[in-house]
């Protein structure tokens, strides 16, 4: 187990380095940052001078090593546009995104898994059919359209819920939370539903498909034949066996929640990292873009490691295969 973890850690570091390289090299090609930093009246010489000063004329390798070295200690430099350290900006934005992703993940798991189990067990039930139909509609509509429709209905027509932002937030040291105020919680509702909807349907369909497969396997039939109550069979044996792929996908989806938050955040003007990133793309704010990508990659690598470890815990068969 220890050597497995060590190997994983080493691989993760290589992954992070590669991602940093990709992130950095790719963004060298996006637009010309100078045009976004200065106003319309700035002269050519001033532009050239600025380019030189920012090190944009240095060789690629030099620029990258400078970037990677600083990134390793959490220093992503200053935002071109805001002239504030990027790490500060990220620290300011991260709570917003993580709270949103967290609530959405909980929502999609808490609703998705039971719905998946239910629809698998009662395949022909009316409720199952409705849930399946709704899930299809859910995956068939683009997130941004869902968000706008929710705003239109709950914000503009009914005027029940806030349509943008996080509401009032409470500062707890370095963390700002929207969980502690009424407006903060109300503001979370529409964005988290928007963000959760797609993951929810995915998890539900996946759990259902896996449940159906497992229910047909011999050992379930055998368990039933042994006279075990349905409840025990379904939840102790069947559900447990569906968990391998569910963990994989859910784990991976957690990461995409953070990434998908880009869309939700831009529709709801949610002051998180995704909004910052999309704004940075428009402004060609390279330090922010690079930092965001590296950070997202970091989340993914972390989640992947956790998923792998859970794999070990859940499916004993994989443990033996690793040795071969």
């Amino acid at each position: 187990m220890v050597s497995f973890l060590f190997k994983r850690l080493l691989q993760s570091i290589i992954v992070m380095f590669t991602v940093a390289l990709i992130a950095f090299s790719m963004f060298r090609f996006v637009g010309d940052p100078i045009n976004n930093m200065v106003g319309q009246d700035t002269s050519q010489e001033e532009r050239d001078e600025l380019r030189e000063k920012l090190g944009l004329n240095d060789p690629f390798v030099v620029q990258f090593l400078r970037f990677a070295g600083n990134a390793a200690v959490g220093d992503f430099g200053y935002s071109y546009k805001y002239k504030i350290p990027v790490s500060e900006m990220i620290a300011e934005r991260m709570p917003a995104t993580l709270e949103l992703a967290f609530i959405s993940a909980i929502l999609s798991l808490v609703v998705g898994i039971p719905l998946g189990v239910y629809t698998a067990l009662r395949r022909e039930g009316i409720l199952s059919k409705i849930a399946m139909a709704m899930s299809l509609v859910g995956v068939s509509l683009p997130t941004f359209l869902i968000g706008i429709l929710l705003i239109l209905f709950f914000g503009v027509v009914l005027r029940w819920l806030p349509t943008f932002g996080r509401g009032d937030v409470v500062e707890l040291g370095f963390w700002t939370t929207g969980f502690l105020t009424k407006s903060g919680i109300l503001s979370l509702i529409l964005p988290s539903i928007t963000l959760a909807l797609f993951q929810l349907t995915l998890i539900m369909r996946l759990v259902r498909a896996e449940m159906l497969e497992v229910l047909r396997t011999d050992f379930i039939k055998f368990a039933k034949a042994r006279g075990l109550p349905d409840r025990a069979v379904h939840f102790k044996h069947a559900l447990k066996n569906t968990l391998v792929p569910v963990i994989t996908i859910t784990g991976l989806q957690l990461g995409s929640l953070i990434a998908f938050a880009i869309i939700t955040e831009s529709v709801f003007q949610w002051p998180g990292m995704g909004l910052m990133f999309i704004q940075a793309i428009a402004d060609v704010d390279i330090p922010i873009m690079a930092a965001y990508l590296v950070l997202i990659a970091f989340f993914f690598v972390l989640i992947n490691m956790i998923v792998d470890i859970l794999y070990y815990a859940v499916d004993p068969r994989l443990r033996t295969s690793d040795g071969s």
Partner: protein
Amino acid sequence: MKLRHGILAAAAAATFAFAAPVVKAETFKFAFQGNLSSLDPHSLNETFLLGSLNNVYEGLVLYDDNLAVIPALAVSWEIIEPTKWKFNLRKGVKFHNGNDFTAADVKFSWERAIGEGSDQIARASKIKSIEIVDDYTVILETPAPNPILTADLVNIYIMDKEWSEENKTTSATSVSADNSGNYANLNENGTGPFKVDEHKADVKTIFSKYDGYWGTMPSNVTRVEFTPIKEAATRVAALISGELDLVYPVPVQDWKRLDEAKGVKPLAGPEARTIFLGMDQGRDELLHSNIKGKNPFKDIRVRQAFAHALNLDAIKKKVMRGAATPAGLMVAPQINGFIPELNTPYAYDPAKSKELLAAAGYPDGFEVTMDCPNDRYVNDEKICQAVASMLAKVGVKIDLLAQTKSKYFGKVLKDGGYDTSFYLLGWTPGTIDAENVLSSLIACKKVEANAGLFNLGNYCNPKVDALTAKIGSETDQAKRNAMIKEAFTMVKDEVGYLPLHQQPLSWGVRDGVGVNQRADNVLDFRYVVIK
């Protein structure tokens, strides 16, 4: 215009009605599509930043609600020599931290604005030197006689010398690494009617009223909350749902919706910005066209053909929902030097357009790429699509290249020659004077002389250039206007540009909120009244 005056009257009435010191906390919440990137008044030459910071910082002079220059930190001024202006400064003005405002602050601020890292260099360069006569008198020297100097002074904001030195922010916040983390980027110490309580870039900025303000103002607002909201739909929704008091800009097609919705209304007026099309008349061969070896736009008949192919009324009616003013001139009516008789657009006449193209040797038209921003002006991309469709009907095939503003400006303003053949651009002269349009858009491009820097198609007429130079230093208003007229007549006769329209200002406000909608699209908190 009618609407605007109505609001103003209401605002004025409100001022008198509440003239007694009513100490009631009034919070004003508004959203704009862009963000406030910095609190440093010399960091970025951008309308929204300068407009917002004008509530916090002030220059020697100020625009009033109708863009007329009024005294601010200077109480009076006189031209003592053609290139020397004497300003008498206001006494008893205190910065937000309690420091006194004096002549030293004026000189210091100008030096900061023209110094390293500043994005106000072009503006500050209109001043050659500042001489401190005494604590409340300064003499400004200009490089050449400049009748409209005060218009430039509006946006050169005065900072506190002591405070800046204490906090090591004697040069402007710039992007260079050694100067990042500039104190003035996130903190302010101005003389304006509002202080900044909290500033989270791109998230929220909170202003509160400065009780020691030297002036009086109609506003009864004690706290202002600004949130940037990029998506138009979210912005409009937030207004309708009652979360905000003002949002701008509002898409013109949503006016109807705001009219129908309870408790909110659209607020519209003509903006001083002219939207126009430009053609590359400088190169011998167009960069992006199927015509090789020659440049069709060099032929006046082709330019005329383009002019007659455009149906400006259709664009106004359909694309702009009636909310634009078709234009024949490169400056708007609010601009000093506007000539009403030149503002009639070229006639819409596709048949004549085809004849002209045939006469010029293009009976079957030709192909050309059009550059267009898609998030800069009101319905910019849709205007370009409509233009493409109109030109198609006379045989000219347009390949439309619509991009976000950063990519668009990166291309059309590309170093070493502007990379465009045909483009859409909008322009508000920052000085509210026609001279700015002549020297930036119409003068032959000479980078070293700061001339024609935004003349992307390099329209070039030495006669117009000569007039522009004279207009720059002519102090006799009548003579000056006559020359402006002469210059614009030449440009129009030669079809140097294709003006389309003045775009509308399009705001949405909650009922019971009075604001002044300034023609340069600036929101001045001084005129915000909440009933």
